[in-house]
């Protein structure tokens, strides 16, 4: 399992990268591993508001559909349209397969460091 140290994580298995006031969000390697082969991704639209702690996207695997919870509140600036055509990109590299870029961030969920998130996953 891979836990890049430059990222922050949530207990709902999203990762977050903050650069110049823009938050890039995706799901963790642990999440893609638990879900198995992903077949479909639903993303919000550019301009949508996302709310910290609430679902903003969903991912579908052969087993199940799971909500993706936003770690931040803000406005969607960009979405990764490549995922809409090929959800397998998330299985290949969960940290390259970002979901959305969020700007005007006003609120954040409690975030974990890579070490904290790794320790949390070992207890599950």
């Amino acid at each position, binding site marked *: 399992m891979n836990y890049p140290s430059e990222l922050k994580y949530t207990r709902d298995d999203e990762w977050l990268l903050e650069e110049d006031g823009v938050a890039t969000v995706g799901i963790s390697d642990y999440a893609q591993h638990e879900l198995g*082969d992903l*077949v479909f991704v639903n993303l919000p639209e550019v301009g949508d508001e996302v709310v910290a702690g609430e679902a903003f996207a969903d991912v579908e695997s*052969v087993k*199940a559909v*799971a909500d993706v919870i936003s770690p931040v509140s803000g406005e969607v600036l960009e979405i990764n349209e490549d995922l809409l055509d090929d959800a*397998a990109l998330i299985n290949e590299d969960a940290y390259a397969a970002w979901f959305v870029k969020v700007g005007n961030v006003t609120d954040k969920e409690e975030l974990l460091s890579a070490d904290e998130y790794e320790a949390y996953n070992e207890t599950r």
Partner: protein
Amino acid sequence: MKLIFEKSIPGRGQQIFPACDVPEVLPKVELRKSVAHLPEISENEMGRHYTALAKRAHGVNDGFYPLGSCTMKHNPRINEKMASLPGFTKLHPLQPACSVKGANELITGLEKALCEITGMDGVTFQPAAGAHGEFTGLLFIKSYHESRGDHERNEIIVPDSAHGTNPASATMAGYKTVEIKSNDKGMVDIESLKAHLGPKTAGLMLTNPNTVGLFDENIMEITKLVHEAGGLCYYDGANLNAVMGVVRPADIGFDVIHMNLHKTFSTPHGGGGPGSGPCGYKAFLAPFAPGLVSRDGGEYTRAEKSFGNMTGFYGNFLVMVKAYTYILTLGKEGIPAAAKNAVLNANYMQEKLKDLYPVAYDTTCMHEFVLCLEEIHKNDKVSALDVAKALLDYGIHPPTMYFPLIVHEALMIEPTETETKETLDEAITAFREIYEQIKNAPEAVCACPQTTPVLRLDEVKAAREPVLKYQF
């Protein structure tokens, strides 16, 4: 196997129509410009084609079908016989009321029977299927709040063990879904419920027994709390089979309910015919009922504040004939006896399997139980999917897999009341033999099935690159 379109040979029709002696009245613009792509095949070849397809499928007629939460019981043949009576099949919904007294009596009789089973005061047969019934139930709740000028209530509470249709129906009805946690017994976590109840609560949707096969022991407190917060309680009738004739949803605090006639009341599932998801309601919700409402004396009128039509006319009538036949065949003693046998069968299987396959919640279950294969998956690298595939080689339809989501590597087993002890024993033996194989030759389990018309399918490819229609 070839598709019927691939068997088609131009000119090899089976019908010879006489020249049309009726003048064409459709305007030219309405007429299609090219000939429809219909397979051209002889009657004999067509019969063989569909028989071959039937041989490759598995239904309750072929063997055990313990698909959890789907209640795949045997449907008595007398249901079909009654529904094929010409007095029923040749009716038209626009016939004068005086010529359909028998059908009206049947609808009224079925409504009364379902009211008696559920404790509700009225039932609408308009919903055409289960999720449509959920949507209807939510429109009752919405109409109720709006009629009181209570426009702030926009949240529907749904437990994390719910069927996926619950949040979907709530969204369709314009509500926001609020998910609450289950406790360590698999039941509604009261504290989580309390934390989410408030002036925005429109209602709670609950399946009881729930999807892990347990009757919520706090049900009276749960419905009381929702009512105290000003919300209504919606009973998802998906698992009504476990309690029909034993516990009435109205008596445990529910205001509105849908029933799946195809699960509980032995009408055909899926492709076997149209669905029916009647929605029962308490008297205070009657003014909002959809469609036409029966009145004493056999007349049908609209409810004063009706929220409209959910479908045309009265719903899928012939399905109602089958359900009513079933209820009358079983009678007042048979209905609860069927429920109790469903519970007995599930507990028998659970007891005979739980030493090998851990049960998600180790307690007396209702009509179904959930095995948790998480440890087996971790230690032996055999997943719930692999065990499901292995069961195919025993001629058993796999249980529901990976549901409910709160149990990892779940196999959800619902034997139903119509299986014999011998069939249950055979299935138990199959499960136990598969367990032996997991321990001795796990790779063999992962290579199952070996005896089915098609072997293991590439489910990922099927989901990612589905081919949904024949390309001409």
